[in-house]
């Protein structure tokens, strides 16, 4: 079938949708601004709840979508609305006329520098969840000293559920990611004391609660119900973290060799840019606005424009994949309806 389908974003949502559409007989076009496919998941090491290697999932998705037309290092320069289609001009000079636009623009990781009180980029021993995954992948990060890892802290909700940071949404995956990363670190440094500072533990997904139980029972990870208020640096370069243990009602101060900030998901500014070009509405949380947040999450209010994955709000990997498949089916039926 020669219907043009433009998929904006080559992360896991875009790849999964492309693979499904290929199976359905289409030849979708993937536009990816970076030089590689797989999005954020490609930067990750292992995925909860079964610790499956992220690279396996990404490479399988890339293999399944290999027959799509893929433009890497390519951005959308502008979008013109024609009568019943869109003219999409790419940064490489190519222009595409399409009746179908699938937004799989995903999210951005919250810039942890913006929580100034946590000292990311200022205090030596502060890193993000993403930095830690990078270390899991490469073993290369000078913040992690294999001989001196006695105490490590994880700060939940960094840039999530935070009106000051202008992100009131819960990023959904950080609670379980923190527990996953805490366990992984504990496996590497069995003598280290590991703390998770949380406001609420949102263990909503399959086997998440089991993960939490493991973390407590098998790994002795300490959960402190209090949001970190301030981080400082000691004379020896270690970080000092202040929170209230709200369950006992006592301020706590711990000195740590490493602090990991669970940077949350925020709307991708590139996503907003494309949305503006295509006159797509943005929801009050900054993410793309669906036709209906219950019944039609993958549909935009615009004819022929669909969504999948975290461009409409924080999602887990399985949720994103499910939406991508649903979007592919929706597109298939939409095209059928046009004929």
């Amino acid at each position, binding site marked *: 079938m020669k219907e043009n389908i433009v998929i904006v974003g080559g992360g896991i949502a875009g790849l999964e949708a492309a693979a499904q559409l290929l199976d359905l007989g289409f030849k979708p076009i993937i536009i990816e601004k970076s030089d590689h496919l797989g999005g954020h998941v490609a930067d990750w090491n292992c995925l909860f709840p079964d610790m499956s290697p992220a690279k396996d999932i990404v490479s399988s998705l890339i293999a399944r979508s290999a027959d799509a037309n893929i433009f890497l290092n390519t951005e959308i320069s502008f979008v013109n609305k024609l009568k019943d289609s869109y003219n999409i001009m790419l940064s490489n000079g190519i222009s595409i006329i399409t009746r179908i636009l699938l937004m799989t623009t995903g999210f951005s990781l919250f810039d942890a520098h913006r929580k100034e009180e946590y000292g990311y980029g200022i205090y030596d021993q502060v890193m993000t969840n993403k930095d830690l995954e990078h270390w899991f992948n490469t073993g290369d990060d000078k913040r992690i000293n294999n001989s001196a890892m006695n105490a490590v802290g994880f700060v939940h909700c960094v840039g999530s559920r935070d009106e*000051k940071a202008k992100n009131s949404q819960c990023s959904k995956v950080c609670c379980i990611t923190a527990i996953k990363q805490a366990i992984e670190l504990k496996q590497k440094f069995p003598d280290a004391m590991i703390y998770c500072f949380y406001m609420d533990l949102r263990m909503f997904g399959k086997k998440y609660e089991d993960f939490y139980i493991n973390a407590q029972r098998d790994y002795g990870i300490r959960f402190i119900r209090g949001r970190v208020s301030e981080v400082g640096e000691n004379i020896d370069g270690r970080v000092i973290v202040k929170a209230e243990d709200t369950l006992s009602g006592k301020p706590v101060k711990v000195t740590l060799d490493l602090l990991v900030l669970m940077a949350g998901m925020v709307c991708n500014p590139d996503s907003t840019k494309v949305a503006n070009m295509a006159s797509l509405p943005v929801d009050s949380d900054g993410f793309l606005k669906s036709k209906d947040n219950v019944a039609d999450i993958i549909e935009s209010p615009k004819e022929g424009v669909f969504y999948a994955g975290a461009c409409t709000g924080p999602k887990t990997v399985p949720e994103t994949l499910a939406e991508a498949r649903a979007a592919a089916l929706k597109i298939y039926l939409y095209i059928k309806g046009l004929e």
Partner: protein
Amino acid sequence: MKLYDELLKDYRAKEGLKTCINCGTCTAICPAAEFYKYDPRKVMDIVQSRDEEEIEKLLKSDFIWYCGECMSCVTRCPRKNGPGLVIMALRNLSARLGYFTFSEKGRQLYPLTKILTGNILNYGYCVYPDTFKWEDHKESGPVWKWHLEHIGDTMARLGANFKGEGPGVLRKIPQKSLDELKSIFDVTGGTERIEAVNKFSKAKAEEMGMDMDEYFRETFEHTSEGHLNSED
């Protein structure tokens, strides 16, 4: 009259209490929470509960008087609350209703009012050498004692205009300006507040069997056991 409604008439309560999630960010860095048996998060939680009985207890307790109003909590709250502002509104209401005399720390409002509003209305300053006695402030050190004993000379050396006409350091504030301050107190409820604090304090002093000088010394100087974290 509902205490919660009264409280919410205060702009500081409106500004300070949006929605609290009990995350403890405020308490974690609160100078008062470290020193006193105090937890600003709990104050927020009680006010948010709208439980009249609990709010009344709060207004009559030492708890609301532990805060130092440094406002460090305001910087950090993820929900844009200001526990310090809510405390100010609670104290304001406690003062108005006379509930402050129910607690030891609350009763300190009497000496505070006497010293600070006295300084403002008499001199135009919040702090003034004539009333900042070394005997009441021995921590100010021998250098302050010396400064006060030779204040004409020490101030002159430093180019101050102590009690002088015209502008400058510790100048005499013209009587007309002091009259304006008094007038401001009269029309804005400042005078009424002073009178209320005095009235409730007098009643309490009587109940405690003290004259007002004794009551002043007692409330200014005395602290009972049990306020501090270190006293567990």
